[in-house]
C-alpha cells in the first residue's frame, strides 16, 4: 500500500505544478525535451539510429534479409517491426517474452511506418511471388525516461533513411559484409507525437514522472503532408471529444518540429 500512497503524493505534486502552469522538469506544456538523432552508429545493421530525448535513449537497427512474399502481396517486400524492453533500460522492464507494453510499442511504431507507405514496398520485390526483401526494424530502448513512442518512431524512420542494401549474391544469399551504395527506397518521413492528459492538463512529450501519473495518452502519427496515418489512445482515463480534436490539430506542428531532427 505504501507504493500506492507514494504514487498519490507524486501525482498531487505534478498536478499542483501544472495547475500553476509548470511542468515537473520546467518545460512549457507544448515543449519537447532536448532531442538528438544520430545515424549510422552500428556497423552490423544495414541502417541504425540513436535517439536521445531528454534522458530517454533508444537505439534502432534496420536489418535486411530475403524471403518469400505474402501470397496476397506477391510483388511487395515484407516489413517487420519488433521491440524489446530489455531490463537493462529500466527497473520496471522484465525478462521474458514480450508483454503487452512491448507489443503495443512495436505495433504503434509499425503503424506509422506502414500506413504512411514511407517504404516503397514494390521496390523490395526481387522476383515476383518468390523472393523479396524483408525489412526488420528493431526498437531497442537503452534508458527509459518516458515517451518511447515518439523516440522509437523517430529512430525507426531515421534508421530506415540511413539504410543501404547489402550485396545480394546470385545464389539468393546475402553477403552482409559487402554493402552496396543503394539506399532503401524511403518516400515519406512519418513521425509520431504523444500528448498526455494529467489532471485535466494536456502536455506534449511526457517524461517518465508524468507517464507514471497520467490519466490518458494520445499518440498521433503524421506523414510529411500533415495527414494522420496512425493514432493510439492509452491510459485508463478518457479524453473529451474537444480535447481530441484540439490535440490532433496541434500535433501537426510538433510533427514538423520532430521531423527537422532527422539527418539526411
Amino acid at each position, binding site marked *: 500500500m505504501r507504493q500506492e500512497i507514494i504514487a498519490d503524493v507524486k501525482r498531487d505534486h505534478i498536478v499542483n505544478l501544472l495547475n500553476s502552469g509548470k511542468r515537473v522538469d520546467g518545460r512549457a506544456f507544448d515543449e519537447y525535451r532536448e532531442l538528438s538523432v544520430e545515424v549510422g552508429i552500428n556497423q552490423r545493421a544495414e541502417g541504425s539510429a540513436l535517439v536521445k530525448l531528454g534522458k530517454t535513449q533508444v537505439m534502432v537497427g534496420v536489418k535486411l534479409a530475403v524471403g518469400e512474399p505474402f501470397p496476397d502481396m506477391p510483388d511487395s517486400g515484407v516489413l517487420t517491426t519488433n521491440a524489446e524492453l530489455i531490463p537493462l533500460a529500466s527497473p520496471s522492464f522484465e525478462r521474458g517474452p514480450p508483454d*503487452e507494453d512491448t*507489443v503495443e510499442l512495436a505495433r504503434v511504431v509499425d503503424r506509422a511506418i506502414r500506413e504512411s507507405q514511407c517504404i516503397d514496398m514494390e521496390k523490395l520485390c526481387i522476383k515476383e511471388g518468390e523472393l523479396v526483401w524483408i525489412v526488420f526494424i528493431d526498437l531497442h530502448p537503452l534508458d527509459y525516461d518516458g515517451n518511447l513512442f515518439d523516440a522509437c518512431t523517430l529512430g525507426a524512420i531515421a534508421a530506415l533513411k540511413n539504410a543501404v542494401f547489402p550485396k545480394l549474391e546470385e545464389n539468393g544469399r546475402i553477403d552482409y559484409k559487402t554493402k552496396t551504395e543503394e539506399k532503401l527506397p524511403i518516400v515519406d518521413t512519418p513521425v509520431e507525437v504523444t500528448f498526455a492528459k494529467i489532471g485535466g492538463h494536456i502536455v506534449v512529450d511526457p517524461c517518465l514522472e508524468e507517464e507514471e501519473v497520467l490519466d490518458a495518452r*494520445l499518440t498521433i502519427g503524421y*506523414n510529411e503532408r500533415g495527414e*494522420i496515418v496512425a493514432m493510439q*489512445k492509452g491510459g485508463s482515463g*478518457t479524453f473529451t*471529444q474537444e480535447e*481530441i*480534436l484540439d490535440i490532433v490539430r496541434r500535433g501537426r506542428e510538433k510533427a514538423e518540429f520532430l521531423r527537422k531532427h532527422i539527418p539526411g
Partner: protein
Amino acid sequence: MKVGEPEEFIIDGRRLDGRRVDELRPLKIEAGVLKRADGSAYVEWGGNKVLAACYGPREIHPRHEANPQRAVLRTYYSMAPFSVYERKRPGPDRRSMEISKVTRQALESVVFTHLYPMTAIDVFIEILQAQAGTRCAGITAASVALADAGIPMKDLVPACAAGKVGGHIVLDLFDIEDNYGEADLPVAIVPRTGEVSLLQMDGNLTQEEFEQAFKLAVKGCMQVYEKQKEALRKRYGGSE
C-alpha cells in the same frame, strides 16, 4: 493493387453490402447467455459473432497482482481458430495482446473498481466469427457482460468504428472495406459524458476527414448504446 481489391466501394450511394455510408451493420445483443460465467453477453454484428463473459469480483491469482485499493480489471481478447478464413493457431498473438490492452483501458474508467480491493474482475472476449470490427464488438459485448455480472459501473461503453473507403467517410467497416479501404478509426465512448475511452487509427486521413470520421464514429457508438441498454432491459425488465 492488392489481390481481391474491388474497383469501387460505393455504387449509386450504396456500399458493397448494400448499406448507406452512415449505416451500421445489423446488430443484435443478448445478455446472460452462459451458465457458468457471472455475467455474459452475445453480440452478432454483421458477420461478427462475439461472446463475452465476466467472472468476478473474485480471488486474484497470482496473488502479487492484487491491489489493496481497488479491483484489478483484466480483459482478454481471443479469436477462435475457426473465426477466420485461414485457421488461426490457438494462443495469443501480438494483435490480440494489443486489443486486450486497449479494451481494458476502454473499460477501466467506468468500472467502480475501488469497491472491490484485492480482487480480480476478469472479462473474456471470444471472437467466434470475424468480419472486421471485432474489437468494437468485443468492447460492446464486454460492458454488457460486466453489467450482467452486477458489477457497478458509471455507464456502459459502446464502441464503433468509422473509416475511409474509396474516398468516402463511412461508418462501421465490414471486411472488404477494412482490408482494402484507406483508413479505420475505432472509437469507444462513455455516453453519459461523451468522453472517449478508446481511439485508434490506421490508414490515411486529412485533418478534415479525421474530424468527420471521428464524429460519425461517435454517432455510431450512440446507436450501439441503445442496443446495449435494450439487451439489459430485455434480460432484467424495467426501463433501465
